[in-house]
Every structure is written in structure tokens, then in C-alpha cells.
């Protein structure tokens, strides 16, 4: 196990700048997830930490020692690839033993380590099989086993669940969480799937276009998004972002809506300031009151059984998503009045930065 420090990491390919100065501290034993849309640089950052890509500028410190210029093979890290990258001609046992043979360990030690990892990952019955005779989930477990046997300083995961079907993804996600609890290593995990990020991470690092947008615990990032991007990216279905304007002390107006919405506003806002109101779909209630915050016409109703998603529109605003617990009888075309919960809304200034109410 080890701690990792990234100082002003920059990466360019020719004129294309991929990472614009990443600063990050990862504590010993922490599970950190890099999350962001495709092309945000999360995999590049992971590969730079691994040593598979050179860093253009900046410093990488593992346990206080710089590893810039140190080849991947000498960094003592282990990586689980999206494609598993198993050696196809070797059995499961040999796949896991390969790195240990490189380390010059004795037969008995190798055998012990491989069998311990296989037991942990329920692979004991498959040790003689070749990767092609395994299911996707089993292959991924072999890839994880190959990392575990080496007892690395840091585990790196590059979208390890992307190639699995939905059911297996959930199961393997749980196994990974349990594994972290069991072996407790420092783990860095890259994904574009925010559910994986929310469920696995001690801390989430949200990246966009080569920059860190926010670092925090999953609930921190969910409850207090630092900006419009994070607010829109984290949470499924995504947060409703409604452009509006301050119209008075503790009062705003959104879109073309004629009436004012009364809500506590942070200091520093003035009448006529442009703002964006963020309300998560689960923080809107359908109401019969006359003083509803917004009225929409339903375009689509999705029944998921345990919950219902309502998609509606109103002139001047993007489509609004409302999440209702249980099952509802609303039909397409129904006019609904919505009330925003006052304890769970978000405000963003014209630059997209979060504004916190007092």
C-alpha cells in the first residue's frame, strides 16, 4: 500500500493538450474514482500514474519518491485493463503466476500466492482453464487476481466493468467493494459510469477536458456540486438546470414563467442577476397548490415499477425530469404542477459556479 501525490500534471500530444495541470493527493488505502465523460483525460491520467504514458510536465510521487522517468515495470503498481489483457495462451494459474515468476519467487511461494488469490476470487476450480474458456466476469476476476498476487503498492483499474453485461457489472462491482474492504489497498479506478463512482469510491475526482472539476466524497459531490458541470454529470436521471433571474430579495423567476419563486438566496446576489436553478428530479413534488413553482405538460412517462420518471415541457425551458416513488397513473399530455423542495435546490452563478445559501 502507498500514498500518491500528483503535482501539476500536464500532458500534451503535439499541439493537443490533454491534461492541464492536475493536483491530487491520494491517501494510503484510499479508493479514489476518476469519473468524467469520454475524452476528459481520466484514462490518460491513470496511464501516466501507471507509467504507460510519459508525463509532459509535473511530478508523480509514490510514498514521497518521484517516479517520473521510472518505467512502469519498476513502479510496483498493478493495473486491471478494460479488455482484461489476459495472456490468451496461458492457463488462469500461469496468468496469475507470470508476474511472480518475473519477480524471481520460488515455486512454492508462487503456488501459495496464486491459490490464495484464486480462493479469494472463487477461481480455484478454473486454474487450469485458458481465458477463452471463461465467462466475461471470470476473466475480469482473473485480471484482478493477477493484480492481487503481486501485492502492489497501488491498484489501478481502467474501466474494468465496461465489457460486462448489466447484471454482471452490478455483481462484480459489489465484489470489488468487498475486495477493497478485505485487502484494503490503495485503489484508483477510472470509469465514466457515475453509479460505479458513487458506489465504490471513498472520494470521487470529477474530470472535464483535462481539468479537475471537483474532488469529494460521493455524497459531497452529489449534495454539493461545485459547478454546473458536476451538477449535470453526477446523478441519474440528471439534475434539472433551469436558467432564471433574481427578481427580488429571496425571489427568482425561471424561464418565461410569469410568477416569482420565493426561496432563500445567498448573499451577494442582486436583482436582475442571471442564475441557474438546479433541482434534482427526486426533489420535485407534484402538487395541487395554486402557488406551485412550475407547471409542465407531460411528454413521456416511464414506469420502472418501483419508481416513475415523468418527462415534461414548458415554454422557454429544457425538458424537465421528475422522479416519483412508486407507480403513478399520469398520462402523456397531463398538465402537472410542481413544487421544488426548498431544502434541496442548487444555485449557480452566470459563470456556472455553485452559490451556497446561508
Amino acid at each position, binding site marked *: 500500500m502507498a500514498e500518491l501525490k500528483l503535482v501539476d500534471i500536464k500532458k500534451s500530444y503535439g499541439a493537443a493538450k490533454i491534461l492541464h495541470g492536475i493536483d491530487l493527493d491520494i491517501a494510503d488505502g484510499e479508493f479514489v474514482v476518476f469519473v468524467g465523460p469520454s475524452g476528459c483525460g481520466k484514462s490518460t491520467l491513470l496511464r501516466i500514474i501507471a507509467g*504507460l504514458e510519459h508525463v509532459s510536465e509535473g511530478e508523480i510521487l509514490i510514498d514521497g519518491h518521484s517516479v517520473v522517468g521510472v518505467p512502469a*515495470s*519498476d513502479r510496483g503498481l498493478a493495473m486491471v485493463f478494460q479488455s482484461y*489483457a489476459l495472456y490468451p495462451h496461458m492457463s488462469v494459474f500461469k496468468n496469475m503466476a507470470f508476474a511472480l515468476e*518475473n519477480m524471481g519467487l520460488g515455486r512454492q511461494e508462487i503456488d501459495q500466492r496464486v491459490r490464495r488469490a484464486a480462493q479469494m476470487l472463487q477461481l480455484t476450480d478454473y486454474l487450469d482453464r485458458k481465458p477463452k474458456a471463461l465467462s466475461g466476469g471470470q476473466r475480469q476476476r482473473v485480471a484482478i487476481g493477477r493484480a492481487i498476487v*503481486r501485492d502492489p503498492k497501488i491498484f489501478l483499474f481502467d474501466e474494468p466493468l465496461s465489457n460486462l453485461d448489466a447484471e454482471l457489472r452490478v455483481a462484480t462491482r459489489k465484489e470489488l467493494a468487498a475486495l477493497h474492504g478485505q485487502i484494503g489497498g490503495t485503489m484508483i479506478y477510472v470509469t465514466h459510469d457515475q453509479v460505479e463512482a458513487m458506489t465504490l469510491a471513498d472520494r470521487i475526482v470529477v474530470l472535464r477536458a483535462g481539468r479537475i472539476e471537483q474532488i469529494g466524497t460521493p455524497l459531497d459531490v452529489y449534495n454539493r456540486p461545485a459547478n454546473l458541470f458536476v451538477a449535470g454529470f453526477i446523478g441519474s436521471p440528471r439534475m434539472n438546470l433551469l436558467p432564471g433571474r433574481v427578481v427580488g430579495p429571496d425571489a427568482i423567476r425561471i424561464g418565461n414563467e410569469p410568477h416569482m419563486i420565493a426561496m432563500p438566496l445567498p448573499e451577494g446576489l442582486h436583482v436582475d442577476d442571471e442564475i441557474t436553478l438546479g433541482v434534482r428530479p427526486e426533489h420535485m413534488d407534484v402538487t395541487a397548490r395554486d402557488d406551485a413553482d412550475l407547471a409542465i405538460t407531460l411528454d413521456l412517462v416511464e414506469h420502472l415499477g418501483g419508481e416513475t420518471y415523468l418527462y415534461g415541457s414548458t415554454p422557454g425551458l429544457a425538458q424537465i425530469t421528475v422522479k416519483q416513488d412508486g407507480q403513478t397513473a399520469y398520462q402523456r399530455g397531463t398538465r402537472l404542477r410542481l413544487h421544488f423542495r426548498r431544502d434541496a435546490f442548487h444555485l449557480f452563478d452566470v459563470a456556472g459556479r455553485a452559490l451556497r445559501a446561508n
Partner: protein
Amino acid sequence: MPGVEPLPKTTARPSIVAWLGIPFVLAMRIVDYPMRALQRALGEQRMAYVFLLPNLIFFSLFVFAPIVINVIFSVTGGPALFPSERPFVGAGQYAYLFDCGSYLDPSTCREDHFWRGVANTFRFTASQVVAMVLLSLLTAVVLNMKIRGRGFFRAVYFFPVLLSPVVVALIWKWILQRDGLLNAGIIGLGGERILFLVEPGWAMFWAVFVSIWAHMGFYTLILLAGLQAIPSDIYEAAEMDATPRWRVFLRLTLPLLWPNLIVVIVLALIRGVQTFDEVFVLTGGGPGTATLMIVQYIYETAFSNQVQNFGLAAAASVVLGVVLCLLTGLQLALSRRKAA
């Protein structure tokens, strides 16, 4: 027809392609009716054989029939060309071919040229295959690296494959002959003229060398394709596993390249055994019989000697055919074992 919408009528004028298509459509219509009738008579399954028939006829006429005629020639004797006029001699031609005091010493054989051809072909093939595989592998590995001008070098190595074997042999003959380019260079540097195509050791060396030069590009291409088919993340995983480079090559690259290597080894073996044109043009099988190959022996026995001995040549061809079948069987067996 109910349930089928009529095609929309178009007012656009038909293009030139449409006009050119008219004869094709007409021909298809004409073929259509008898084919439908045939399918009704034979059923869908047997119809497949009808489509295979044209190629089967060509195969029978130009491949299978000559093989049969060749076997008939090999068990008959005399100078006559038509099988019906040739007397049956049983295994006589084979007995004559294989009549040897010691198979390791061609001079003890009645048909010593055949055995010299066998010995030369064996030496040629063995040295050519080993050198060819090693050099192609090395070249493919280098051409697979991220080097400057990679595309240019790939083209350069493949270019000789495009040349006719006769052209290849003539180019090298021009370089290697008594007053050739190479000797001019050696003399220019103060050395003594070497008779590359006259001294037996040199002649065989250059026969092997020229063959490798001419065909290496093809085998390099097969191995290069194999190398490129190995996913790069396997090498990254090996790097993360702290694998030394030599071990990456021996434990990952070579085993993953094995199917391509089998193809290269067996194709090179088959081509080596069949070698004729390049060596024939380069050395004429000489000096003496130093570079005489089996195929040249067969050719000369059948067509260019004063007494044209078709029967003996046919028997030698059958022996060569059996060897080639064994080699092909070896390739299939190795490929299947690897696949299993």
C-alpha cells in the same frame, strides 16, 4: 400481389449504368427459368452441387486428370506419348528410381541424378527454411516497431515478391557472374575475382540467398500481420508485470505468433521442395549437378534430355507429390493441435 406495395414510379431517365445492366438482367431472366425447374426437380440441397459443377469440371480437367495421367505414365514405359500405346511396367520405374547401393551416396544409385536432386533439394530447403524463418521474423519484428520510414521499408522488403522468378534470377546472375557487379566491386577494392556461380559451395549459397531475397517479403508480411494481431494491451500488461524484454518475446510474442510461424515454415518448406525456375535460370543446376533440384531433374528427364523418359519423370513427380502431401498434412496437424 396482395401485401406487396408497388414500386414507386420514377420519371428520372435511366443512367448509363442502368442501360449497361439491361443485358445482365436479360441473361439472368433467361437463366432463371431452367434453374427454377432444376431446383424443383433436384431440391434445394442438391442444387448446391449444380453451382459447384463448373469449377469441378475445370478442376477435373486441368488438375485431377493430369494427376491421374501422371500416375498412369509412372507405371508404364517406353517413349510413346499416348497412354494407350505405353506398355504397363508396374512398379518398374519406381524400382529403377530407388535402386541404390546406399541412399546416402547418390553415386551408388542407378538414377544418380535423381538422388543428387533429392540431396540438393534437401540441403537447399533445410538451409533456406531456417534462414528464411529467422530473417523474416527478425525483419517483421523490426518493421513492427515505431521506426521512421516504416512504410517505406515495408514496401522495400515486399518489392522482390512482385518480381517474376526469372527476372529475379537474371538480376542476380548479372550481379554474380564472372564479370558481374559483385566481382567488379571486389576487384575495385583490390580483391580477387570469385567464381560465385562456378564453385559448387558458392553456387548453392547464392541459390539459397537469392531465393530468400525473392520470397522473404511474403513471409515477413505474414509474420507482420501476426504481430499486429497481438493486442497492444497484452504488452502493457506484461510491462506492468515487470516482464524483461527477452521474456516478453519468448513467452508472449513467439507463442502468440506460433500459428503464423507454422504457416511460414510449411509454406517455405513446400516452396523449397518445389524450387525450380530461380535456381534453373541462375545456375542451370550446375556447376555439374551441384544445384540440381528434383523438379529440374523431372523437367529434364521428361522434356529436355535426348531420350525423353516420361515414365521415369512421372514416377519422380509422384514421389515429390507424396512428399508435398506429407508436408501439407504436417501443417494441418500442427495447426489443428495449436487450435485445440
